[in-house]
């Protein structure tokens, strides 16, 4: 139910997995560890894995958009992968897919990012 975040590293790409419910209350818990890792400057690209995310609202969209803008300003890419029907619907309504590509799996996301690494 509550929010949890998992960070993994693969080929200089930061893989972030969101679990549970990402609302305004959880936004800080999602933002801070990502910011800390990214500001170190070791990673240019991020894959955001959402298949274990049960709930999101516009506050969660704000967290994703915020990371997207940060990365974009530094030439980094963000790729989203894996979503349940509710999360896909909310992301769809937000129009976020016009900015951020979504694929089915981490390997798909890796190959999408390969050209940029």
């Amino acid at each position, binding site marked *: *139910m*509550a929010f949890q975040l998992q960070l993994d590293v693969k080929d200089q790409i930061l893989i972030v997995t969101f679990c549970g*419910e990402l*609302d*305004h*209350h959880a*936004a800080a818990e999602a*933002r801070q560890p990502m910011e800390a890792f990214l500001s170190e400057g070791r990673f240019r690209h991020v894959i955001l894995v959402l298949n274990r995310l049960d*709930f*999101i*609202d*516009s*506050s969660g*969209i*704000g*967290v994703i*958009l*915020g990371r997207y803008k940060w990365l974009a300003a530094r030439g980094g890419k963000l790729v989203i992968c894996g979503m349940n*029907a*509710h999360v896909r*619907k*909310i992301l769809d*309504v*937000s129009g976020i897919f016009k900015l951020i590509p979504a694929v089915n799996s981490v390997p798909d996301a890796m190959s999408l990012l390969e050209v940029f690494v």
Partner: protein
Amino acid sequence: MTAIATVQNHIKFTFPAMSENESLARTVVAAFVMSLDPMLDELNDLKTAVSEAVTNAIIHGYDERNSGMIDLEAELDGRTVFIRITDYGRGIHDLWQARQPMYTSKPDLERPGMGFTMMEHLMDEVTVQSVAGRGTTIGLRKTISPVDMRWH
């Protein structure tokens, strides 16, 4: 279990404007509509819209001061759910502007300005009543699909 065709029920839930209570508000609404046996999709629509309205009351109504109370009223009339979320905070001075997609008065907080857009997209009707300096009431309405009209 038989689904009751017409249910009359109305609850009021009052809680402090703290972000910890956002999920509590969602849970209360989800449990309240359970007797209608909603589809998962409909349940998530309601939870998301409630989350938007409650979050707005906390962030905008009360400026995240962790003080002030929020009233959540929910009513069932047949298969239609009416929800009212009220704060007694700063109020909205320009309602038209507030409802514009992407408008936010707090861009520094990474607010995407999509709360009203979400509510309008997910609910059958969204009403806003607000008096500057007095507070805001968001009204949400959604009809849950009849169980026997669904595909199995």
